[in-house]
């Protein structure tokens, strides 16, 4: 890869044939990574198609991909701002106390629980941006949300604030020849991520295209209701591609959406002001907006949540695929990968030279959509 690209380019260290210390995507100065030329593990890289399928199967089963090492929180760059924010909070609080607006939390007659609820609501309303929080602050807001749910619904949820692990960069590959359009991934995703059932929000779209006509997205049907696989058609799934140079992140006026260290592009639902600028900026139709209050039936709520992932959203905020951050950071595959009956979906750590996704990138003819836009999606398509 050239050193002086005029545009952004994702560098995984693929296709690098010379061992240059420190230049490999895996970060290790020597060996152990498929892209170092010194001891080329040729055998590993020339797996036959059957072996590859077996590996896919295995990947579907396996859970222990990502080590659960917790990293220190983001550096609190804006210490000063946080201080000012606290000052502001106190100021408004005192003003409102004067006006009697926090009446419930001061009232003697209301019970302890009501007071606690009001207290939590108050702190949630004026908390800062998750991206800039310290690990303790992150944990505190997660605890508050869990407690709030407990108070309201009398049920417990599990919410994680796990940060990105070191040396992990998530990537995804989609096998066009395998996909049959069953849409199991779509329903698994809806369930896993507590998406609004009323508006039938779906992160994944499966486009049904005619054989022999190439990728004609504009003629494809992404909302079909017939038996699949339909004769003479092939299928292609799209979702948020977790671009490495995401335009959606650049445009957000309040930094409510950002790229995490492990490559996931996430949204802080409590910081988003709902301007939908990111939606206009996304070239891949990757984002979904809560036009009304999202509703999930009580018994269908997935209680295993992550702050940046599938926790319950409110109306007027943006959301999107997070590669199931609650699962991927716990070492599991996203729900769509697990649900796919054909093994068309492959997920893994791009920096791990032994991962299936790396094998696909190195051995298949892969391509991405709209590469000319310079967004560098971490979502590749390939065919058998």
């Amino acid at each position, binding site marked *: 890869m050239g050193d002086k690209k005029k545009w952004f380019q994702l560098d995984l260290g693929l296709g690098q044939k010379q061992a240059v210390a420190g230049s490999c995507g895996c970060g290790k100065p020597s060996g152990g990574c498929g892209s170092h030329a010194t001891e080329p593990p040729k055998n590993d890289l020339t797996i036959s198609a059957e072996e590859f399928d077996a590996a896919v199967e295995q990947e579907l089963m396996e859970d222990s991909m990502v080590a659960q090492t917790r990293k220190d929180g983001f550096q609190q760059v804006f210490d000063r701002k946080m201080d000012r924010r606290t000052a502001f909070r106190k100021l408004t609080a005192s003003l409102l106390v004067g006006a009697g607006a926090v009446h419930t939390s001061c009232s003697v007659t209301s019970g302890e629980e009501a007071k606690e609820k009001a207290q939590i609501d108050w702190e949630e309303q004026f908390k800062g941006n998750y991206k800039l929080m310290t690990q303790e602050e992150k944990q505190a807001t997660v605890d508050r949300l869990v407690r709030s749910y407990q108070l309201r619904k009398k049920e417990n949820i599990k919410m994680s604030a796990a940060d990105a692990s070191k040396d992990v960069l998530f990537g995804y590959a989609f096998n066009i020849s395998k996909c049959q359009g069953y849409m199991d991934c779509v329903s698994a995703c809806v369930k896993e991520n507590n998406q609004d059932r009323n508006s039938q929000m779906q992160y994944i779209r499966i486009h049904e295209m005619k054989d022999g006509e190439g990728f004609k997205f504009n003629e494809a049907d*992404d909302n079909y209701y017939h038996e699949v696989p339909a004769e003479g058609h092939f299928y292609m799934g799209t979702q948020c591609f977790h671009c490495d140079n995401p335009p959606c992140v650049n445009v957000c006026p309040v930094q409510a959406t950002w790229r995490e260290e492990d490559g996931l592009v996430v949204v802080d639902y409590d910081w988003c002001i709902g301007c939908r600028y990111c939606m206009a900026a996304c070239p891949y139709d990757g984002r979904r907006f809560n036009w009304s209050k999202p509703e999930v039936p009580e018994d269908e709520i997935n209680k295993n949540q992550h702050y940046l992932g599938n926790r319950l959203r409110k109306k007027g905020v943006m959301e999107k695929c997070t590669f199931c951050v609650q699962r991927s950071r716990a070492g599991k595959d996203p729900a769509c990968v697990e649900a796919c009956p054909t093994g068309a979906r492959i997920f893994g750590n791009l920096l791990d030279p032994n991962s299936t996704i790396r094998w696909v990138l190195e051995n298949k003819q892969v391509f991405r959509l709209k590469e000319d836009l310079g967004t560098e999606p971490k979502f590749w398509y390939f065919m058998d």
Partner: protein
Amino acid sequence: MGTFRAFRHMVKDSLDYITHGSKTYHIWMIFLTVIMLIGMYCYSIQLDEGLSVTGMTDRVSWGLYISNFTFLVGVAAAAVMLVMPTYVLKDIDFKQAVLIGEGLAVAALVMCLAFVVADMGGPSVLWHMIPGIGVFNFPNSMLAWDVIVLNGYLFINITIPLYILFRHYQGKEAKSKVYIPGSIISVLWAVAIHLVTAFLYEGLQARPFWNNALLGPRFLASAFAAGPALIILVLAAIRKFSEFKIEDKTISKIAMIVTVAAQINLIMLISELFKEFYAPTHHSESAYYLFFGLEGKTALLPWIWTAIPLNVLATVLLTFHKLRNNTKVLYFCCFILFVAIWIEKGFGLIVPGFIPGPYGKIAEYTPTWIEIWVTLGIWAMGAFVFTMLAKTSIGIELGKLRYKKKKILKSETV
């Protein structure tokens, strides 16, 4: 201390002054208030239910609100283009027009901000946008830039006229040393707000219809046509309903600005159309949709085919001196030009940006009644603000409102 007291008096006098007036004035204000109330009621429904009460969807995620916002930024920017000749080049003709123009800019900006707030999914967390308290994505996000320039512009446009009026209110001359630097800044700033707003769209590689280098300049040209056109209409109304003297010369000079801007705008339109239709690519689909419809979806056709002929007609009529100097024709031209540009720079610009969608899906957009009423409510609010500002400044300029002359005045105005 004396200044403070004078200022307090000015506020009190103006309040007094704007609550009194002729019958037409009262009917006008009541009419606006009623529309504002309906708009507020509709907005409360929107707050309650969420933005699902609008026609917007995941496929077309900006609609009427953002269209009006974009257009009004142009009006606000253009109003100040009258400032330059008056204050700086000492062109006396424009002097009366300027205070009106700046009042118009303030009203347009108030409307802009109201439209942005109406479009937000979470107005209760808007404080996240306030620099210092929230987190501002500066300088990456064009929207962050826009918030800064719009508020800065609002500040400038309030302070300059306020200063001048305040001096006049006290019966003193406004010091040119104070306001000339201010007005030069405001003129440059006017260009900035409009360019930044254009960059908001221009910078999105995802939307080929907007990702077009001509967008910014074309914004400016159309704004300098539509804004002064509105000013002419407003001046005409003021001439009719108050004793404020506005010379024909002033109006014909502004008409000159409108004409030149409209001509440039037309040239750019031709250039755009040529690029989209001479060698159409995938990226021309949005333009195709706008002008001819795609796959039988033709919601925008009536709009754009109203706008284009009106635009051409107005430009052609304005080009001829004879016609332009006839006030009747002039007012008519200004009106149709204003409407044409409102369609073109609002609806005709924002909606096709989303159609076809990133994967070619064609989903149309039609505003709902709630959306339309909120929009009308905000326009009424703008008109309300403007009427108040204009009435006060006319009162001061005519000498009806003067510090320590209250007694005499009372008997005059009522």
